[in-house]
């Protein structure tokens, strides 16, 4: 009897030891972008941290928000995830993601090394929730060769963009402007916000009141410009994804576009037919500002509850988004992704890699003028409502006033619901 009891206890102890020694497995969820690089980064991390295993799961970008809502609400095990600036307040308010500062105060050391707009995007109620995967700006991009060959200069404002498009159209170019048009993409809104910032306008004031429906406001004027470009002047072609805008620009059938800046790297690199012909210009408008944003690694509240997973998650997040910024640097060098880490601005490897596709000084100047967006808890949800309306206005299916009034009303509805 005694022997059996001892054996049972021994087995229990052995089991406990085996379980404790087993590596912790982190569930890491991302949107689909260059999965091979992510897997390679994970392999390197696992080699350096044999007590942690990482299971990767990816979802398409335009389905990422909805999928994560289902995953997090349904408590599907998720430890570390990509997060976006417009979803952080929503997910944090729902209690789905945890502040890094609450558990790892040492994360604060990264604040001073982070670009201000990116830091603001990763912060909710004064606390840092993540370390950046990448941070970028949405820029005005153009074909400098075609522009020069037609005797045109870099446009300073949207009136000039229109005049140059009309001139190019007269010369036989059907659609001088190509636009990423898909209401399901969050960047459909972000690109618009970037243009409004270029004009020196805002969509909301500091008290979170909507300004977008002010007919004298810059948001209203810009949406009207876009509608006119499509409906009245017929100078704009649509592509439903940035990966299609890039080759479209390389056909030489278009001169202007507004995109996440990293697309310029893809546009300017061989084997693209017109590689080297593309450049960025300061966002048209009197302010010349643009939208800056951060996408970041975030720890879920599920992971935060378990000390073992929490510590493993932090080590993973720091290795990917902090430390000596090896991972961010790799994204910057290999894919042209922007970065939040200020030290990388002067990194010789980054400078050398970027010199092949962008004028670094122009990028720095535009990044300096970047503003992060207004991101209250309801921003992501509101954006889902507003983007289809905006898409409708683009093609003349609704007036700008109708769309902006509806957008403002919905914003106020969410605001009331969540502030009451």
């Amino acid at each position, binding site marked *: 009897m005694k022997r059996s009891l001892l054996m049972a206890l021994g087995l229990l102890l052995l089991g406990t030891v085996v379980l404790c020694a087993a590596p912790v497995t982190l569930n890491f969820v991302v949107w689909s972008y260059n999965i091979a690089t992510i897997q390679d980064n994970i392999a390197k991390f696992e080699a350096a941290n044999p007590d942690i295993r990482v299971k990767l799961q990816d979802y398409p970008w335009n389905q990422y*928000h*909805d999928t994560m*809502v*289902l995953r997090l*609400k349904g408590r599907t095990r998720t430890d570390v995830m990509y997060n976006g600036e417009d979803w952080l307040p*929503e997910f944090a*308010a*729902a209690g789905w993601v945890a502040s890094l500062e609450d558990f790892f105060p040492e994360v604060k050391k990264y604040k001073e090394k982070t670009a201000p707009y990116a830091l603001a995007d990763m912060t909710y109620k004064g606390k840092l929730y993540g370390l950046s995967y990448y941070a970028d700006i949405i820029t005005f991009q153009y074909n400098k060769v075609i522009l020069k060959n037609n005797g045109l200069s870099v446009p300073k404002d949207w009136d000039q963009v229109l005049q140059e498009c009309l001139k190019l159209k007269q010369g036989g170019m059907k659609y001088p402007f190509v636009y990423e*048009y*898909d*209401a*399901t*993409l969050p960047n459909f809104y972000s690109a618009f916000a970037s243009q409004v910032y270029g004009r020196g306008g805002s969509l909301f004031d500091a008290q979170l009141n909507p300004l977008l429906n002010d007919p004298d406001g810059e948001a209203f004027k810009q949406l009207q410009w876009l509608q006119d470009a499509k409906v009245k002047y017929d100078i704009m*072609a*649509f592509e*439903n994804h940035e990966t299609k805008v890039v080759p*479209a620009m390389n*056909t030489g*059938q278009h001169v202007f576009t507004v995109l996440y800046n990293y697309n310029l790297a893809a546009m300017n690199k061989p084997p693209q037919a017109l590689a080297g012909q593309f450049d960025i210009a300061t966002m048209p408008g009197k302010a010349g500002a643009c939208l800056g944003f951060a996408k970041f690694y975030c720890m879920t509240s599920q992971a935060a509850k378990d000390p073992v997973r929490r510590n493993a998650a932090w080590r993973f997040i720091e290795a990917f988004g902090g430390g000596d910024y090896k991972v961010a640097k790799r994204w910057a060098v290999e894919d042209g992704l922007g970065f939040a880490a200020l030290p990388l601005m002067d990194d010789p490897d980054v400078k050398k890699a970027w010199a092949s596709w962008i004028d670094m000084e122009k990028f720095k100047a535009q990044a300096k003028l970047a503003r992060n967006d207004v991101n209250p*808890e309801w921003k992501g*949800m*509101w954006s*889902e*409502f507003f983007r*289809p*309306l905006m*898409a*409708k*206005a*683009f*093609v*003349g*299916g*609704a007036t700008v006033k*109708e769309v902006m009034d*509806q957008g403002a009303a919905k914003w106020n509805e969410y605001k009331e*619901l*969540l502030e009451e």
Partner: protein
Amino acid sequence: VARRELSRYPIEWLFPVLILVIVFTVYPFGYAIWSSLFRILLISPKRPFVGFKNYLDVVSSIYFQEALLNTLLFAAITAPLTVVIALGVARLLLTRFFGRGVVRAVVLLPWAMPAVVSGIVWVWIFHGRWGVLNAVLLKTGIISTYIEWLDHPVLAKFSVMVAHIWTQIPFASVLLMAALSIINKELYEAAEVDGAGVVRKFFSITLPQIKGMATIALIYELIMGLTAYDLTYAMTGGGPGGATTLLGYYVWAESFKMLQFGRGAALGVIMAAITLALILAIMRAVPGELSVEN
């Protein structure tokens, strides 16, 4: 004996299936109706009872009218067209010809493809500047300038309908092939003796014999049309400007994009009611075909 046993213990025999129906159909639907009466904003802990406000909100929303019309039009055109084309395909596949096995496999291919993949394939066909269709039409001299199939509201509707019908034909064909293959051949022989032509044989023999299955296929396709959205969204994202926006998308969008579960549930209940009404209308129009006795 079996018939007597069935009638003697009806509930006991039905019980296993009833459990499944209750768990997977009655409970979720009941829960959706219950949820539709509350204001459920996923990130807010408050869930006040709001009665029918969610229904009023979705019906009066800016997207509802357009999405409803688009959905009804989409289903009304694609469902009958799918059944008609599938009937032709089914008849073709029952005919003996060289390579029939290969053709049968190819015809079933769209059924096996995920909707998003189908959407990408059809974008390659309909794209306004580098699509295959424009290239073919231009080379054959049918058009002189490229057509923006997916950027024009009417043409975009047409394009997504074509793609949807393409994905639906295989299943409807399989159903109709089954119905066609059990028609007694002697009926055709007798009709031929009486001098009936192809058209007469179709309307007097084929159609009455497959009416029940064709009605089932029509109802199925109607439901597919009313609840469709994944393929259209892969092709157009609901655009241009809402021209291809369907109600099914907004059930999803209200719930998982705008996180207003109460409204999403209300819209789901409205859609279920519309679908039920249309099914009942079809069953009335084709009396007796779907009853147990038949």
